[in-house]
């Protein structure tokens, strides 16, 4: 168990190093921050000076080594625009992102699993067909479009809910629904197909022969047996919901990491993007590790040596 955990940690570190290199190189290919920083009338010498100040005059790999050395010590540099430590700026925005992402995740899991189990149980019924149809619609609707349509209906026309910002619980509703709806649909569909397979198995027949109620069979036995693939996808989804907040945060003007990163990207504020991507990656990797450990709890056949 401990060895397994250690191996996974080593692999996670390699993943993180890989991600940091890709981000580092990719954003440098996206454009030159000096051009947006330098005043209109800057001379060549001025520009070179700014560039040297930011360390951008050195070869990319040298820049990366310097960045990595500092990053290991927790220093992700300072925001080019705001001159504040990048990691602090990202960390300050993290609660807002987790707030909406986790809410969407919980919503998606509870509703998705419930609908998946119910549609599997009443397979072929009218409810089964309509819920599945709805799920396909929800999965096909792109987040930015769905967000704007919801704003149009519930904020602009009905005046029920605020269109943007963070504060009251009412502010949460539209971003969470926008973010979570596709996740509800995919959780529901996966749960349904996994449940159908389980409900057709021999041990379910044997459970029925013991006189157990259908509720007991479905919720206690079949769901737990169907849960491994659902859990795997839930892990991926939780990561996606955190990272996917980028679009939703922009549409709803939600002050989270995603919105900060989009702004930083537009301003070519490299340290912010690097720190943000790094933090999101760490979250993704930890969630995956957590999911792997949960497998062993759900299914005793998967216990790591």
């Amino acid at each position: 168990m401990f060895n397994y955990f250690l191996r996974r940690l080593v692999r996670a570190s390699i993943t993180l190093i890989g991600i940091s290199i890709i981000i580092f190189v990719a954003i440098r290919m996206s454009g030159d921050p000096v051009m947006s920083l330098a005043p209109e009338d800057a001379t060549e010498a001025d520009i070179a000076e700014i560039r040297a100040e930011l360390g951008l005059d050195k070869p990319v790999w040298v820049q990366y080594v310097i960045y990595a050395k500092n990053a290991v010590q927790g220093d992700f540099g300072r925001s080019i625009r705001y001159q504040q430590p990048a990691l602090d700026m990202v960390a300050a925005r993290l609660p807002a992102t987790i707030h909406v992402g986790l809410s969407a995740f919980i919503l998606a899991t509870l509703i998705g699993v419930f609908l998946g189990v119910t549609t599997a149980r009443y397979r072929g019924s009218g409810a089964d067909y309509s819920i599945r149809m709805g799920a396909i619609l929800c999965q096909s609707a792109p987040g930015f479009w769905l967000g704007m349509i919801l704003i149009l209906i519930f904020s602009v026309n009905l005046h029920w809910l605020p269109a943007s910002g963070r504060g009251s619980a009412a502010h949460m509703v539209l971003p969470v629904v926008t973010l979570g709806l596709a996740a509800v649909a995919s959780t529901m569909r996966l749960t349904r197909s996994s449940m159908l397979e389980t409900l057709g198995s021999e041990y379910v027949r044997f459970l029925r022969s013991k006189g157990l109620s259908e509720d007991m069979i479905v919720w206690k036995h079949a769901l737990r047996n169907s849960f491994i693939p659902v859990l795997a996808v839930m892990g991926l989804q939780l990561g996606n919901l955190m990272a996917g907040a980028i679009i939703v945060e922009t549409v709803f003007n939600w002050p989270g990491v995603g919105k900060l990163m989009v702004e930083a990207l537009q301003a070519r504020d490299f340290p912010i993007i690097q720190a943000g991507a790094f933090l999101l990656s760490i979250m993704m990797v930890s969630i995956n590790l957590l999911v792997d450990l949960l497998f062993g709890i759900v299914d005793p056949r998967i216990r790591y040596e």
Partner: protein
Amino acid sequence: MNDMSSSFPASETSAPLLDVDDLTVDIAARDGKGIVHAVSGVSFELKRGCTLGIVGESGCGKSTTAMAIMQLLPGSAQIKSGTISFDGNDIVGKSQTEMRALRGKRIGMIMQDPMVALDPVFTVGDQLAEPLKLHMGLKGQALLERQVALLEAVGIPSPETRLKQYPHQMSGGMLQRIVGAIAISCNPELLIADEPTTALDPTAQAQFLDLLADIRDTRGLALIIVTHDFGVTARLCDDIMVMYAGRIVERGPVETIFKAPRHPYTRALLDAIPKPENDRSKGLATIEGQPPNLAESISGCSFAPRCRFAMPRCTSERPPVTKLPGDHQTACWLEVV
């Protein structure tokens, strides 16, 4: 072979525990068109303490008959006619809630493949506890004592340890014993075993059959064994019912069926059992041809196309059931004089 002087006094009342009369089950074909007549006009009785073997090829309707008694037929199957009377009450058309009070409590079931009969993510103890809690209201120490006693009754060593284990930690033979312990946990009056030894290796098979006989004799329950193996019926059964294409072709006491089979299908099945004295160079005896497609309506005897003794009449008219001496009956034109 048939231990009628069981240590548990069999009920003296002559009323059978189970009385199936003219049972007919249709199953909607997979493609949505057509109906498979899985069971047609099956009638039999079973007394307490007695064992009935239902024998036949795959798809002959033997498992469907067993499932109909449990009222656990798949959604595509429907009991079209007939009655299944359990202890005097017709259970056809009973609600699932009413059936749940019977299942596991008065009727127990043993599945074919023990490796897939238990839920892999719960301990054996959990799964054994479920019917005990549900039907007998046991908990705490009383529950544990009963669990241990049941595992001991099916011959599982160190029961306390086994209760905490998961199915994947045990062998097939041991799992089938666990399945048996669950099936008899609430002292059922009827035990249905659907191919109980098919998935086991020969040693485990013999041991499990001995266990079944022991359970039947000590608890005085009625036993139905669904099998394609005549060897199994010879060890355990009082009566044998041979099914073909959803119908009973022959029924009688086990000695009569083995010594004086009347239906050509029964004879062919018995001939197909490999015997040491047979000439090996001739290969194994087989029955030519395939069972009929049960989605098509069959006029006459359904075995006629494969029967060595088929007469013109066999393909046009269904043979009536002929009663023979000694509680023996068969449905064959050869017996109609």
